[in-house]
């Protein structure tokens, strides 16, 4: 088992960035087609990042590099932990610590656009954080039911249950999908920074990052996206072989849906985002937990 865990972590380390980079390319292609454009090559995100690294880096201070680098490393670390199958709470806590570094990267610049972006980024964290913790608790309770008492937060145990966890966690899955839009920085919740060129805050949190520093943030986002899709896949994994193609298919479908949502919705104000996210968390997540506790 340990060997598989290490292999899966190594595969993530090597392919994690590439997969999400390709997905980003597909996303752009798809969006372009939806809007009646031809769109760039699927490999365009890689060209973009390569170009960032070849450019001269303009920085406001020495701290920016350190913080951007810490962000990248912590995100990769989080993903590696996830694919190595350790405690899911630990993974989520590492994720929020990593997310903090993006905020610091922005505010340390002392720039108006970045600082505003950072405030909005914190608002996003405020919106999605409860659901993230509840998701972890949901997984734990589903293993509790499947094992008949003894629960586990370990991803490896969650992924090898008798049934896919989604069976017990439909509400939590919906809630997680909701906050995934925030985490993917997709419209209507692309509040702190956006992939599109119509942000009123220029580039939000990443406004004052350039060249190498921006490239690292971009790669970190790829790793983060692969990891998040991994969490989606986790809902569908069980100890049957067919759960693997099911999980991959589900993750792909979710990404497709996110792209569609991104294209058909307009950005909302942060107040609405927080209210919606918390509302969905309470209704979907909270009810699901109560059902698990008192009915099963």
């Amino acid at each position, binding site marked *: 088992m340990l060997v598989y865990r290490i292999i899966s972590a190594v595969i993530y380390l090597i392919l994690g960035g590439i997969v999400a980079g390709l997905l980003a390319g597909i996303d752009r292609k798809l969006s372009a087609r939806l809007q009646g454009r031809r769109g760039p090559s699927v490999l365009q995100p890689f060209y973009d990042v390569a170009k960032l690294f070849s450019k001269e880096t303009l920085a406001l201070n020495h701290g920016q590099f*350190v913080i951007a680098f810490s962000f990248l490393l912590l995100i990769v670390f989080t993903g590696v932990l996830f694919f190595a199958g350790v405690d899911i709470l630990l993974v989520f806590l590492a994720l929020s610590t990593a997310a903090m570094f993006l905020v610091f990267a922005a505010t340390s610049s002392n720039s108006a656009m970045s600082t505003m972006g950072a405030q909005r980024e914190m608002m996003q964290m405020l919106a999605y954080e409860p659901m993230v913790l509840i998701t972890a608790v949901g997984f734990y309770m589903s293993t509790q039911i499947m094992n008949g008492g003894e629960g586990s937060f370990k991803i490896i145990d969650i992924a090898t249950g008798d049934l896919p966890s989604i069976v017990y966690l439909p509400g939590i899955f919906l809630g997680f999908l909701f906050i995934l839009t925030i985490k993917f920085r997709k419209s209507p919740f692309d509040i702190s920074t956006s992939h599109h060129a119509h942000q009123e805050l220029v580039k939000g949190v990443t406004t004052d990052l350039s060249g190498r520093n921006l490239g690292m943030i971009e790669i970190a986002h790829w790793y983060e996206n692969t990891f998040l899709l991994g969490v989606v896949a986790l809902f569908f994994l069980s100890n049957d072989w067919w759960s693997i193609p099911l999980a991959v298919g589900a993750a792909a479908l979710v990404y497709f849906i996110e792209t569609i949502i991104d294209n058909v919705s307009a950005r909302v104000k942060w107040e609405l985002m927080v209210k919606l996210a918390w509302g969905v968390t309470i209704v979907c997540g909270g009810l699901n937990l109560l059902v698990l506790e008192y009915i099963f």
Partner: protein
Amino acid sequence: MYSLKKGMAMELYIALLIIFPFLAAIVQAFVKNNTVRKISVYISSAAIITATIIFAVLNFGKEQSFIPTDFMLGGFDIIGTVNYGMLIVEFILMGIITYLSFKYKKYYAALLSIVQTCFVAWLELSGNAHAVNEYLFCDNLTLILCLMIAVVGGLICVYAVGYLKDYHHHHGAEVKDRRSFFCAMLFVFLGAMFGIVFSANLIWMYFFWEITSVVSFLLIGYTKTKEAVDNSFRALWMNLLGGVGFAIAIGYAALKLHIFNLADLVASKDPVIVIPLICLALAALTKSAQLPFSRWLMGAMVAPTPSSALLHSATMVKAGIYLLIRIAPAMTGNLVGLTVALIGGFTFFVASIRAIIHTDGKKVLAYSTISNLGLIVACCGVGIDETIWAAIFLMMFHCVSKSLLFQTVGSVEHTTGSRNIEDMHGLIKRYPALAIAMTIGIAGMYLAPFGMLISKWSALQAFVDAGNIILVLLLAFGSATTLFYWTKWISKLLAYARPTIRRKDTTSLDQWISIGGHTVMMVALCLVFPFLSNSLVNPIVNSLYGIDNFKPVLSDENLFILVLMIIILALVIVAGFVITRLVKTKQTSVYMSGIDTGDERHYVGAFDEERTMYHANWYLSDMIGTDRLMNVATAIAAAGLIIGAVLTIGGVL
């Protein structure tokens, strides 16, 4: 049981630990010269810290032990005399409260004080209260508390010397210089705290408990302004109400159950013990400033910073937590536990929301104290072994990091003239040392590899195991709001803003000794965390629950990963700074959509005039800034507490 082989060494040592701070206080009360005060505070603090560490090392890992204290000295009944002495002091305290209540026309405080003092005095004099010979008590939990009180409290006293000098320099004639009184009160506080943690007997505990109530009242009223007086009386009546609860608990336990010791009460199988338990819980909730009694701690902010640091970290609020941890095994799964747990969880959530709206650093710290204590209280209320483990760690980490934060805020205030978080913008450039100490303090409160978060994590896990979904939800939402208010504070500190004015860092050596000591302790605590868990905290949980195989919810694998994470973070930050020195990076200026004037501080406005740029954090005051939120929350908590108490008492009568 502790044998008497060593003679009276142990109880004499404990007696000395309790009495010495009081003696130090008497010395302070008469010292009028600043240099003498400084030297005597240093000596007293050093003595308290050293004596406690030696005591802790000598008794480390010993079994829970009562210390028979029925010794006579040449036919002279020492204990009897001490008991009468305590009674006299209680009446003196009552006299002080009554006098001040009448002076400031706050008669209710006098009433509360007179009622409970007379009741306890009657209990003692009628011979109903002292049927045991075990007055003192010591186990690992006591030792942890002692170390917290001595080390953190001692350092705060040192800090106070430097701080008060600045304080009176700044405040000049507005505030009467009562430094002798202030320092004396700090030491009395330490002595009273030692008393609480070493007392096995409820009446002794109550005696020291009342001292902390009165001393905090006197400290809060230090400046004697109207606001200070009002706030100090609010603190007093709330804590006296808790004291009434304590007195009723003692009376009920003594008269009905013939129990005089806290440990016997907890071990008792009689179902009616829930009545004294809910009364003790009331006392603990008031002391720990839980809803509906949170307002006194907010009001306590008017006092000079060292007293806030002391109230919030090593003493006062931790007395409540200590009591709850002690009675936690008896609260497992009953209505008292449920009431306490829900009030704690609710307080955690509400206070963390309130912390968002404040710009005043001390207020944010105060709400964060209330909030974090709420979490600890919730852990105690759930009362299973896992949550107690989490509660003890939360208490330790909170103690050190909160004390550190109050002190850094105090020093920043004296250096820059403001404790407003908005004014701490770019502190890392102006006062790097203070900013780093403050950042470590904040990181200790909520960031991943640091202890608070680890404990919070195991609390979450334990809540799920206990099947309390409401607490899980409160913790999930409260964590998000906690994340928000700390992150925005750190991001203010870390902004690389070029300083406009640079004043000299006026933080004195006294303050640095304490701040430095706390910073080192904070980092060290995180590094020795697994060791502490195995050698100190696990045995406490074992002895509280009478089991011998307690395993914390965090597995070794997780602890290993956490240590790895600390190392990675440290390496990255060090490596990053080295790399940035090596790699060529071109300096540029902030992007301002092409309207900057070149100095990163001004821009060209719509009417072509030069305007100053200002970055503000978000405080969401239009959303949650109303007092209504707090009033409604207080009402809900009060209703919950009353319903819980009524159901508890009604259930067994």
